[in-house]
């Protein structure tokens, strides 16, 4: 463990002797039996970008929610600019100069940028004066920090990156001196993320203090001055970014050495397992989500689908998994499969040896209130192997579950425990154990490591590669570019319901993929 005493050691731009912008002393918070924050002390110098990194469930979000007045700490105190401050609600946080940009934006979709900025900060009963003042003030701020946003644009019509800028402007409009950003790059392309980091550096240089919460090591290394690592509710270290490395941070996060790189042999592709042609999906609102997608996946290879969330990847997985109807054609081992009729459901797909690890394990992959053993047959409950006569063979299923939990290192290995009581990584392992051990010809994997701790990521990646090496076809969808680059044998990039191009991981880089993800193709044909 690193020495906590060097916390307040100077960050860029901090005037010597001035109190830290934020100081937390001995913050503790428990939710029921879970100790989310345990005696946390932190000090962030004025005019610094301070990163907070940690695995899911390490307590980062809880800590920030305490700072923003959503939760009340059980113990401990908060000092803003050296002054002990009570933050009972978000109004108090705003008054103390704290602004928060949430992972999921809190914007009114059909309001304009200006209306959203003013919302909650209206000056009187009549809007007209507020609006004209606000327009002037907003333009000033936007110019000062080089954040160009049209004040009269409607939120639902502007891009995600712009929406995020509106969130930042909202905080600045309320005179925030301290800005907290929670996983801000989850929805951004690499280029948009770079733009965001430029804005953040600009804000820092103007003397604002920024706290960046993320689980991406690369961002921490890129943009922060100092970084704190959280693990299991505790602050395990605070270090200067310049003096650390991703490997060291990963080790501090997990508590042991981890392999950040995926280790795999070159692929040995065999026969074509799945052939998709001209797949189209129109959703309930008559919006075309897939606009003619075609590709092939061969035995023994992993095709990675890269793209910013919401560009048709989910629909693609859902069509293949039998959740969404589509037009076009899909062949599995040369046989056409039903896309709209009676045999287009998830069960028919499973009978065709297509296994599906869904993107959202809590809403789709698992029944959170079911026990582990019930979940381990979920989706395959019709299999005669799981029944004896009229009734389900519960004892047999439980015995089988014990084996699967052991082979996939699910902890704790208790078949009777409800899915909701496992951590994210172990929940995902339950889903993977179920799907991979069916030994499918085609495995669909969506966001295999979303919300999964680093230690489990390594394990999950190994299992996927093992299945590939056993000669199975794998379609991987992930918004984590690192994961796509590390696992895939071929990469297809999706944008706006189309595949913009295919690349080999060895012959491309994040910059090129980032452009494709933003829909820029330089007039190539693919």
């Amino acid at each position, binding site marked *: 463990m690193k020495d906590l005493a060097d916390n307040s050691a100077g960050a860029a731009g901090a005037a010597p002797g001035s109190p830290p912008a934020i100081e937390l002393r001995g913050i503790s918070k428990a939710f029921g039996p879970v100790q989310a924050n345990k005696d946390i002390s932190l000090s962030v110098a004025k005019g610094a970008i301070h990163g907070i990194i940690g695995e899911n469930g390490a307590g980062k979000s809880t800590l920030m929610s305490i700072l923003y007045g959503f939760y009340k700490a059980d113990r401990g105190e908060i000092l803003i600019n050296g002054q002990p401050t009570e933050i009972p609600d978000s109004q108090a946080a705003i008054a103390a100069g704290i602004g928060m940009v949430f992972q999921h934006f809190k914007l009114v979709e059909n309001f304009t940028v200006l209306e959203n900025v003013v919302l909650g900060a209206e000056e009187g009963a009549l809007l007209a004066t507020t609006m004209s003042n606000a327009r002037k003030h907003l333009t000033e701020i936007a110019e000062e920090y080089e954040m160009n946003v049209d004040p009269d644009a409607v939120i639902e019509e502007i891009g995600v990156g712009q929406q995020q800028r509106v969130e930042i402007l909202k905080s600045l409009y309320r005179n925030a001196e301290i800005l907290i950003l929670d996983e801000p790059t989850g929805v951004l392309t690499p280029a948009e993320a770079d733009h965001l980091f430029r804005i953040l550096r600009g804000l820092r240089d103007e003397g604002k203090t920024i706290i960046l919460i993320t689980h991406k090591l690369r961002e921490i290394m890129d943009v922060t001055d100092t970084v704190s690592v959280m693990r299991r509710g505790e602050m395990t270290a605070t270090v200067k970014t310049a003096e650390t490395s991703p490997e060291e941070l990963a080790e501090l996060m997990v508590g042991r050495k981890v392999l950040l790189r995926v280790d795999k042999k070159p692929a040995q592709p065999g026969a074509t397992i799945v052939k998709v042609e001209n797949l189209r999906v129109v959703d309930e609102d008559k919006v075309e989500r897939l606009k003619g997608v075609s590709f092939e996946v061969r035995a023994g290879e992993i095709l990675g689908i890269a793209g910013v969330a919401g560009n048709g990847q989910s629909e693609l997985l859902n069509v293949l998994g039998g959740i969404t109807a589509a037009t076009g054609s899909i062949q599995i081992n040369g046989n056409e499969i039903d896309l709209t009729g009676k045999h287009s459901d*998830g069960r028919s797909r499973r009978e065709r040896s297509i296994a599906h690890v869904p993107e959202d394990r809590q809403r789709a992959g698992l029944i959170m209130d079911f026990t582990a053993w019930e979940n381990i047959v979920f989706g395959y409950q019709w299999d005669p192997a799981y029944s004896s006569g009229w009734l389900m063979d519960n004892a047999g299923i439980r015995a089988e579950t014990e084996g699967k939990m052991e082979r996939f290192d699910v902890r704790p290995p208790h078949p009777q425990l409800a899915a909701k009581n496992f951590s994210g990584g172990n929940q995902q392992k339950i889903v993977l154990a179920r799907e991979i051990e069916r030994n499918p010809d085609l495995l669909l994997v969506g966001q295999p490591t979303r919300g999964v701790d680093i230690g489990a990521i390594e394990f999950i990646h190994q299992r996927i590669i093992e299945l590939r090496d056993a000669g199975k076809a794998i379609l991987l969808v992930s918004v984590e570019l690192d994961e796509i680059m590390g696992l895939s044998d071929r990469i297809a990039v999706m944008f706006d319901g189309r595949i913009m191009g295919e690349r080999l991981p060895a012959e491309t880089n994040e910059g090129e993929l980032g452009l494709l993800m933003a829909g820029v193709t330089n007039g190539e044909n693919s």
Partner: protein
Amino acid sequence: MEVMPKWADVVLVPLISLVLAMIISALVILGIGEDPWAALKLMVQGALGSPYGWGYTLYYATNFIFTGLAVSVAFHAAMFNIGGEGQATLGGLGVALVCLALPWPHWALALPAATLGAALFGAAWAAIPAYLAAKRGSHIVITTIMFNFIGAAVLNYMLVNVLRPPSSMDPASAKFPDGTALPSFHDMFSPIIAFPKSVPANISFLIALVACLVVWLLIWRTRFGFELRAFGKSESAAVYAGISPTKIIMGSMLISGALAGMMAINTVQGEAGRLVLNSVEGAGFIGIAVALMGRSHPAGVLIAAILFGFLYQGGAELALWMSIPRELVVVIQGLVILFTGALDNMVRMPIERVFLWRRRSRQAAGE
């Protein structure tokens, strides 16, 4: 980790709710100048103190078991079937039509046929709201409650225009043939326990017990039950797994309606021996409270149904022997429903906090 041990969830919470309801009821009885302790003694004596009392208590309990199971089955599929009243009404029509159709030689033949008739009519009455919910997205609460009114009107029409014997002025069917009369507790247990001839409890109580077992097997031991519970917990996950929502909605509601309908063999065939207006007497609604209090588990439903049977019979005794008006008995029943069903969380949350506090202090001691 669960916050509370299972026994606290299943036993302690309902018990405390019940005690609270009793305290408030006692205050109400005090308020009208009567002695709550005497009232309680009278209720217990009247409902549980004699074979006569038990004969009535278990007769009411039989109704509540069927309607409670009906609500529970649907509830496991996240369907809130509050149409038990209408489904039981139509079940009664099914029983009557079967019993009047043939000169039944023996109850052992008439009972399975009438049970089938009750189940079919009850299921059919649930089928229309279920179809509308599955195919048109209509809200099951709205449609089932509306079908209660339609069911009452249908029964009224059938009794007045079709089933009423021509000479009769009473909106009721003809008396069923003697061969349909079910063995009462008096017939069944006479050498061992002397149930008076007048008690209405009959062999359908045993059918209700069998129904509890069958429902338990269905929900927790069959594939359909697995899919039904999965759908009830998470529709999106069920669709991912290839479980058809239509199949689950229709299946669960048909079973639910059939169970509610089967209540009629107790009231119509067992007790009345003919079909009369309003033979359900609110048991369809009591079923909701029974299912809530019984945690939608057949064992819980059985216990809760007997409790409500006790309240019905004990309440009737109160109205008979003390100067406590009939309306106040309904108030007491309402308080029990309110505390055990609707205000469950009010009791649950403080208890959870106690358990949390105990665990934390134990952990602190262990450290």
